[in-house]
């Protein structure tokens, strides 16, 4: 009786606004293509949980599994198992080991994100001064990766820029707000707060606003337009970095369906994704495009 293609989409954390907007794009694509979409994942970032879901999907015999891997290594074994059983595997947002999947829908490389944020921070600080980072947890996979790149690049590229603290916020906006407040009081010369988790950006912005340091302490970070709109308008948050997450979900589902139907093969140079048109493929990375900075000027063009 089953004739519809079944695609599983595994986010890092289901409740995260970032992935919710991914899902919106994915749903749109699923409707257009007439495929069945399962969107399920841990409620908080949790590698073990992701593993269990993938294994469940394998025994459920889905046609395609798409994952945003919380942790490269731990998920790859399960993904290889899926491929061995004839299930097509795609990664999006955060990659697994290359041999564990066919393609990676690359919204931006880790370096692209980390350096994008760092460059922006350096620009706002005028090339020298103190910056601080707010992360979700100290253990979260992709954030660790970005931090690693930042730590490596900083002394080389911006020797006068000083990273004075990395503070976890447990993905809680309120905690990020407290942390940012304490950071500002401990470091009166702090110039930029960089939030590398989405709840952290509005949290830090609210702290800066309450501290009356709008314009003195800059806030940049990852995030969705709707959660940051008012801070961007008020000038508290200078820029919110995001690739278009809805497009990411949309593209992922299109790529998944194409992969399952054998329309997307290794070695392809480009890929046509419905209403979004053509995307470039380099190696096995389908490129979504560069990350995007939402600023006062353009943020009102987006509603998600």
């Amino acid at each position: 009786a089953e004739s519809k293609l079944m695609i599983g989409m595994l986010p890092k954390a289901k409740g995260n606004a970032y992935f919710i907007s991914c899902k919106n794009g994915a749903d749109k694509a699923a409707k257009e293509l007439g495929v069945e979409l399962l969107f399920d994942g841990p409620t908080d970032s949790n590698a073990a949980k992701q593993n269990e879901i993938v294994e469940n999907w394998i025994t459920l015999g889905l046609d395609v599994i798409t994952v945003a891997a919380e942790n490269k290594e731990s998920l790859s074994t399960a993904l290889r198992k899926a491929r061995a059983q004839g299930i097509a595997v795609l990664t999006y947002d955060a990659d697994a080991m290359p041999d564990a999947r066919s393609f990676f829908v690359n919204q931006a490389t880790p370096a692209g994100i980390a350096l994008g944020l760092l460059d922006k921070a350096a620009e706002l600080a005028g090339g020298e001064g103190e910056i601080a980072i707010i992360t979700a947890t100290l253990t979260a996979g992709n954030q660790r990766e970005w931090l690693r790149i930042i730590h490596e690049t900083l002394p080389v590229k911006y020797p006068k820029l000083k990273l004075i603290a990395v503070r976890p916020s447990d993905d809680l906006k309120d905690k990020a707000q407290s942390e940012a407040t304490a950071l500002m009081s401990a470091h009166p010369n702090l110039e930029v707060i960089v939030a590398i988790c989405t709840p952290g950006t509005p949290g830090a912005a609210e702290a800066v606003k309450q501290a009356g340091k709008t314009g003195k302490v800059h806030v940049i970070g990852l995030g969705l337009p709707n959660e940051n709109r008012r801070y961007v308008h008020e000038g508290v948050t200078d820029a919110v970095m995001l690739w278009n997450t809805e497009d990411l979900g949309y593209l992922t589902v299109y790529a998944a369906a194409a992969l399952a139907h054998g329309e997307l093969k290794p070695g392809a140079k480009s890929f046509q994704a419905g209403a979004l048109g053509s995307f470039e493929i380099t190696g096995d990375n389908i490129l979504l495009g560069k990350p995007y900075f939402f600023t006062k000027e353009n943020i009102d063009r987006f509603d998600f």
Partner: protein
Amino acid sequence: MSPTGETPLWRRLLFRHETLLLLVLVVEWLLFYHYGTTVNRRGVTVGFGTMDRQMDILRHSCEIGLLALALTPVILTAGIDLSVGSLLGLCAIVFGKLWHDAGVGLPLAAALTLLAGALAGGLNAGLITRLRLPPLIVTLGTYSLFRGLAEAMTQGAVTYTDFPAAFLFLGQERWLGLPAQAWVLLPVAAGVWLMVHATATGRSLRAIGFSPEGARYAGLPVDRRVALVYVLAGVIAALAALIYTARLGQAKADAGTGYELFAITAVVLGGTSIFGGRGSITGTLLGVAAIAVLKNGLATLPVVIRLNATEELAGVLTGLLLLLALLGSNLPAWLGRGRTPR
């Protein structure tokens, strides 16, 4: 609830908590078998009713199962250990660090990890028996402390991976038809079962749970026994850390986050009284199974009835099931006298 000589055997068996739980488990299983199994578009039978799925459920339940086994003797003595999940994380890091950074061979690293678990359990035990502090407070403190040490040791950032296949076998492969880690769980279950049900030690744990003073007056080594259960909990948590690491192929400071609550839920669902004295390993295992089947069974439904968000639904249903089980097993108590809280 107390059996007296006059109640016929069949009635005693029928109204046992374990029997009711087994019934719940069977009903769950049959429902999921019926509604959670289907044939996919490639003509393959998929879903809950497949052997693979059953094996996966077993595989995913091993760590929680171990922690629940560790907690049952603790709760039998009317204690509690909130730190087992954090200790799992700490032990995973200790293991990874020993093997990866210190270059210790895997068997020795594993042995030292078990020792670390015993020491951590010993810290709980010492604070509880020497300073006479309530277990809830002690293990609330070590809950934070152990996780903190794991993060401090890795600066939150290091993940140990690239374990050799021989070790990963323990977490990812099958042996003699069962997932390899089941061969860790089963002996531990048998061992703890024997300790609780077949030895004088287990008897004294119950006595302590019912009345620590009464046990002391009977000449039982109360402090030693209490220390034993916390140390044992530490060792078993370390064992769980090993198979967790093997299953995921990585050791990371956040391993086992929140597992203590799952394990406590399973133990209590299994009929062990949080006031101590009453409870069984069979019940605990059934409790673990009931939760695992519920969770994994619901996870198979999206394919069949297009139901998303099964994770949350499983949480809600587990909470309700726990309340129902409590209400059910307390029914006789309502008719008679109540117990004092906590």
